């Protein structure tokens, strides 16, 4: 994979993965996916949605699953939930094989799925919680405190006896999340949990997700396009692109991985074509901006290589006026990884075509 090779190049592989590897050795994973592959259709019309995913998730962790549309996130999540049969691979949740013992595996997981109501709109908030508690295999009569607590935590106390269809979009989203939690399972999948929520509700939900993991020991797996949510609540992020995992590490490690690798360099004078070609052949030149006798370069390189970059520029008759490290946020990391994966894919296809 592209990221792995880039990490081997810059020597960060061991550092960035060490934290998760250490954790993995201490406890058995609550979710284990080995060699997951899913192909829709047959023959020439077949489309490979997931091309070989391996992942394991530790109990009590909050894991973000992200990727652009069509990356294979939904197929992966639905395969883990047993809603989709994989073409190949083994999936276990709490040591139960999901596709061999589906019903038993469902004792351990609950989910809210994006784009679905997940609740009965013609029933009240409290009725929904009671029903999903029972559907989840619990006796709601013994769990009135938990149900009332969920109603309270999601700020739905005043609406507890209101039918869901009369609630706002954000409130409906809260009800579906509360219903997933009312099932009282080890693992909870939340697909775009903050979609439609206002800022305050999003923050409350983020706090609640952390509390569920830290205090209750629940494992939360969430997919989101909201990088702020991923950065704020997730212990770890799994980034998918084109049906495969392109990065799997702690959020901090992923940011560290790219941090200080990109420099904004301003040189005095216009960079000519020959010099630009030379730079492009030796460094990852991300952007060149010529204006009023100066040239601003965005270059991706590591610390040692940076000095060679300066030498190369001076050999071309350009002196460095200023430079600064570009701090990457999680959005940049995500875009970088998915772009890089697509670039690798394109190159691989070109090589195949030449062969």
């Amino acid at each position, binding site marked *: 994979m592209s990221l792995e090779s880039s990490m081997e190049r810059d020597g960060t592989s061991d550092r960035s993965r060490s934290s998760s590897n250490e954790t993995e050795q201490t406890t058995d994973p609550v979710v284990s996916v080995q060699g997951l592959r899913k192909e829709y259709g047959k023959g020439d019309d077949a489309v490979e949605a997931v091309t070989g995913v391996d992942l394991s998730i530790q109990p009590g962790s909050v894991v973000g699953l992200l990727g652009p549309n069509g990356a294979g996130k939904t197929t992966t999540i639905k395969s883990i939930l047993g809603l*989709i049969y994989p073409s190949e691979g083994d999936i276990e949740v709490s040591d139960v094989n999901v596709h061999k013992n589906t019903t038993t595996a469902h004792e351990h997981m609950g989910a809210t799925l994006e784009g679905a109501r997940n609740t009965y709109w013609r029933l009240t908030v409290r009725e929904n919680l009671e029903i999903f508690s029972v559907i989840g295999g619990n006796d709601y009569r013994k769990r009135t405190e938990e149900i009332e607590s969920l109603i309270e935590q999601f700020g739905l106390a005043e609406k507890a006896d209101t039918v869901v269809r009369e609630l706002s979009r954000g409130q409906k989203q809260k009800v579906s999340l509360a219903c997933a939690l009312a099932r009282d399972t080890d693992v909870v999948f939340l697909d775009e949990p903050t979609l439609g929520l206002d800022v305050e509700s999003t923050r409350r939900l983020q706090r609640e997700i952390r509390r569920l993991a830290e205090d209750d020991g629940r494992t939360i797996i969430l997919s989101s396009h909201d990088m702020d949510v991923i950065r704020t609540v997730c212990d770890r992020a799994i980034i998918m692109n084109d049906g495969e995992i392109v990065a799997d590490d702690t959020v901090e490690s992923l940011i560290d991985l790219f941090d200080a690798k990109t420099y904004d360099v301003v040189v005095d004078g216009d960079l000519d074509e020959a010099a630009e070609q030379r730079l492009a052949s030796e460094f990852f030149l991300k952007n060149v901006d010529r204006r009023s006798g100066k040239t601003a370069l965005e270059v991706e390189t590591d610390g040692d290589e940076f000095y060679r970059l300066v030498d190369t520029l001076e050999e071309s008759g350009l002196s460095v006026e200023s430079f600064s490290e570009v701090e990457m946020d999680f959005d940049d990391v995500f875009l970088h990884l998915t772009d890089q994966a697509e670039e690798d894919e394109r190159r691989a296809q070109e090589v195949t075509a030449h062969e």
Partner: protein
Amino acid sequence: MSNASVTDAEQDDGSGLLLLIWTIFRMNFLLMARYKVNFAAQIVGMYLFFAVIFFGGRAAVQNVGGGMGALGGTLDALIVGWFLWTMAQSAYSSLSTEITQESRWGTLEQLFMSPHGFGTVLGVKVFVNMLLSMVIGSLMLALMLLTTGRTLALDFVSVFPIVVLTLLSVVGLGYVFAGLALVYKQISNVSQLMQFVLIGLIAAPVAELPILSVLPLVQGSEMLQATMREGVRLWEFSPLQLGTLVGTAVVYSVVGYLIFMLCLHVARDRGVMGHY
């Protein structure tokens, strides 16, 4: 949290299933009570349909010969046939309608993920729907008897098992169409045609063509007519009749369920569970 949930499941001595039945029954009842106008309109609609036929076509119905089959034979036959059709219609359509609705609502996946098992949850829904369809059927029967001034033999010990076994064969059809709804989604037009097929099955001329009794509804319809119009007791039927009634109930419901599970497999393989 989760440990407690597993404990609940481990301690499940059948009380979990009873609670599931009660919960789904309660849910249906709440919806009926909350949308009582809708529910009343359903009953009134069915009754008006009958009333139009009864008052408008009384002469025609009375003059049509017995050879036309059970439905057109007599007014009593019409009432019994209508009683059965009301319940059969409800028992058949409720499952496929619910699958379509739950799929649209995005709650189907939640039911599928129940540790009770998707088959059990659907089985409970079928059971509750059958109970409710029998209540609706009984209500319709009372209204029809009041309207026509007719009396019928209502021997519960005979009528109830015949009705249950007859409806089970229809439930099998319901499972088939529910499975098709799971895979193909938009099957409501085909599904609506089934109500006319049900009328045909209820009125099937089994006396002239005994082989028709192996079809769903047919044997039960004939036996219900005999019980309610002529007072025949359950144990007075021949072993062949009883065997055909039980056999069609078991075969159609089991085959229907297996076809549903096959469709479920196809839906999971294609990744279309819940897509609408």
